[in-house]
């Protein structure tokens, strides 16, 4: 298609003047940003700043509720996905999402991953099994679960469940992965491993993450967006955010929280 609004060689995502409303209450104001392919963007800011709301723009998850709506444009690979005509299923196949609370489905480990694959691909049994294996290997869970693929997913630890959810997402071959505080409900050691995994995932995927805290943003992300009261206050490479924040609000937040 030749409808790309800008040069997509450097810019994979471009958000233009997005406002967002829960009913009549506006919570995002004129959000604008750009993001490159194969890099990690962290959304930081105080609780209630609008990070989770902003993250749910990219897969239009807010569409599940009739009373929520967004204005403006969100270009992914040059196409405005806020356009009502844009195919939601195609969008969500292309944009995976990991939640704060692990969300395995009430079925076996194997079926959890196969469920997503079957939504989008018609595969033979062996190709399906192969794909499930590759996904589990990618998240480094294969060795722990290969002997109990038919066991129930709820029997896994929270950390394993979160890895399973990541495997479920990447098994349908997305380009963009959204993560909303993915380590908030798992133990510190597993959280560290998950951070390492996120680092390796960026070779193949573009990632937007709401980190659990600033330290995590510093460890995993390439670029940071600082939110406050639904507005984007500052957008900088993560290393500069900590050394010399240009904005007073950002500086207050960083010094107040990371000491």
């Amino acid at each position, binding site marked *: 298609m030749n409808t790309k609004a800008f040069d997509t060689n450097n810019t994979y995502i471009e958000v233009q003047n997005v406002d967002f409303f829960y009913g009549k209450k506006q919570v995002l104001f004129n959000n604008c940003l750009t993001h490159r392919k194969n890099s990690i963007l962290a959304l930081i800011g105080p609780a209630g700043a609008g990070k989770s709301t902003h993250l749910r723009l990219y897969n239009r998850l807010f569409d599940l509720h009739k009373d929520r709506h967004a204005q403006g444009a969100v270009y992914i690979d040059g196409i405005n996905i806020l356009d009502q005509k844009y195919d939601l299923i195609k969008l*969500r196949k292309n944009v995976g999402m990991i*939640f704060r609370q692990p969300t395995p489905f*009430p079925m076996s480990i194997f079926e959890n991953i196969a*469920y997503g694959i079957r939504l989008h691909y018609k595969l033979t049994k062996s190709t399906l099994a192969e794909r499930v294996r590759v996904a589990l290997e990618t998240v480094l869970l294969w060795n722990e679960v290969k002997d109990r693929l038919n066991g129930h997913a709820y029997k896994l630890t929270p950390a394993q*469940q979160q890895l399973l959810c990541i495997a479920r997402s990447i098994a*349908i071959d997305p380009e963009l992965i959204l993560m909303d505080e993915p380590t908030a409900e798992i133990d510190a050691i597993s959280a560290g491993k998950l951070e390492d995994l996120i680092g390796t995932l960026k070779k193949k995927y573009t990632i937007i993450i709401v980190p659990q805290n600033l330290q995590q943003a510093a460890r995993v992300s390439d670029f940071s967006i600082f939110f406050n009261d639904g507005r984007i206050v500052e957008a900088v490479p993560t290393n500069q955010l900590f050394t010399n924040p240009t904005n007073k609000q950002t500086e207050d937040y960083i010094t107040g929280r990371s000491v």
Partner: protein
Amino acid sequence: MKAKSLYQRRLVNFIMLSITAGCALFSFLVLVMLIIALCKNGYPALTKTFFTALPAPPGVDEGGVSNALQGSIKMILFSALIGVPTGILAGLYIGELARNTRKADFVLNACGILSGTPTIVTGLFVYTLIVIPSGHFSGFAGITALTLIIIPVTARITAEILVQSSTAMREAAFALGASQWNVTFFVLLRAVRSGLASAILLTIARISGETAPLLFTALNNNYEADSLSQPTASITVTIFQYALSPFAERNDIAWGAALLLTLFILAVTLIARYTGKPQYLSRPLR
């Protein structure tokens, strides 16, 4: 000062504990006495004839309740077969498909009122709706009455369980690109199925003991009903009529039927308990 308040707290604690334990003991004793009475009077009646024979004329021994057993089983089975799926689908509409809309609220409230309606009123309603126009009592009318009791209860329970189930899991399924019906049937319904199955079993246990709606609709039959368009005997109506009968053999049969019914309801309730227990306690669904 400190010692006195500790003493007071202990005293209050002791009194409250005694009162609550006393009430608990009382209700337990009532249950025990009920079961003893049922077993003592009912057990001797549970002979082979009881299960296999038709009712005998008054005053004659050797009577049974085979027709009532069959009638009850048929009416409970058919009303469950119609009422449970209808109720679940209505519950899916309220709790998921039309979630948080005025229409869903309206249907939910209607179900709330309907499930609170005394069942004798439902019986009367079906009586005017079916029995009077058709000119006779029938198994169909009985099934209709029981179905009307099952639907609103099942719908409400389904909707409530769905609303309480994890929103994160629901969002996760949609985020994978699943369609509404796929999420509803393969993820949500699956997530709540054990709780739902248990609630449905309890509903079935509840309608098994219904008498009033059957008195108005299926009434009774001394013979085996050839079809459901005839008046149909049931265990509960048999208990009601035989217990009031002046004949001792009939009173005995009423006791036997009461014991049988209680055992059935007890068994279903226990199965429901077992079914409803979360299989994986390590991570409760939210």
